[in-house]
């Protein structure tokens, strides 16, 4: 799950070296915290949050297969 977010984020940003994902587990919920360089924030969130929501859709599908609920937070 963490690798998936890292992989997508690195492809979206101008500065992949600043991409970092922290993972915490709360019961059956997995919380992923994505950090990127300030100038890349817009690229991982997208207009109206559409990029972030697209990532959340993929995480939901991937999570379902592992019986987990995944929450993505940015910044």
């Amino acid at each position: 799950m963490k690798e998936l977010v890292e992989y997508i984020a690195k492809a979206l940003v101008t500065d992949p070296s600043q991409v970092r994902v922290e993972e915490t587990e709360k019961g059956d919920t997995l919380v992923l915290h994505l950090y990127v360089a300030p100038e890349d924030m817009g690229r991982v969130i997208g207009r109206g949050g559409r990029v972030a929501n697209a990532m959340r859709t993929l995480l939901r599908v991937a999570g379902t297969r592992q019986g987990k609920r995944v929450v993505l937070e940015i910044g």
Partner: protein
Amino acid sequence: MTEEHVASIFEGKDVEEAITKGLQALGLRRDEVDVEILHRGSRGFLGIGAVPARVRLVPKSQEQAEAEVQTPAAEEASPGEKPVETYAAEILEGIVRRMGFDARVNAYWGTAEPGEKRPLVLNIEGRDLGLLIGHHAETLSALQYLMRAIVNQYTHRWMNIVVDVENYRQRRKENLRRLALRMAEQVARTGRPVVLEAMPAADRRLIHIALRDHPDVYTVSVGKEPRRKVTIRPKSELKDKGK
């Protein structure tokens, strides 16, 4: 792969028409090409001795690609010299594998719809990929949206990227077309409108297009997203109202 060498010459009765024809043939928009006017054309006298206008259209992407080849040092830290097809296929394969699917991605240039850019189709192939499509193709749309953002970042220009799973979009297109024609025939026969099930905008668009020139029916969308539905109605009711 196939986008090279498409600088082309087009003719029309005036410059504007020649450009329009060219853009249609290339499937590009006006701001995506550089226009070189070869001949302004002349109407002649009473149509005698008329000379068509002639223009050369050069897609800007091609020029940019050439410029990049000439100055490779300009983009020092760029991800590399990979062609966009290869890059896009690799990234998408990386994403679906990290989602836990065993799949390959096949990239090819599709055919352009009128007024649209030629699409780079990324078709995901493998077994049990239904989840990658999702309810109302929601997952497929998410993959496509992300791939557009990722490829834009790579090429620094807008590209028409289409993400598909086992040619689902193509099959869906044909099925919707068949459904539209079958329902239209029923509406024409009974004179009663038919309301189709709720579907996303892209699917509704296909229904509208399929029945655009139908002699006996017309289509309207009713309701609010995401429950918006196409209604197929008989044209005869329009005439009745007119009386």
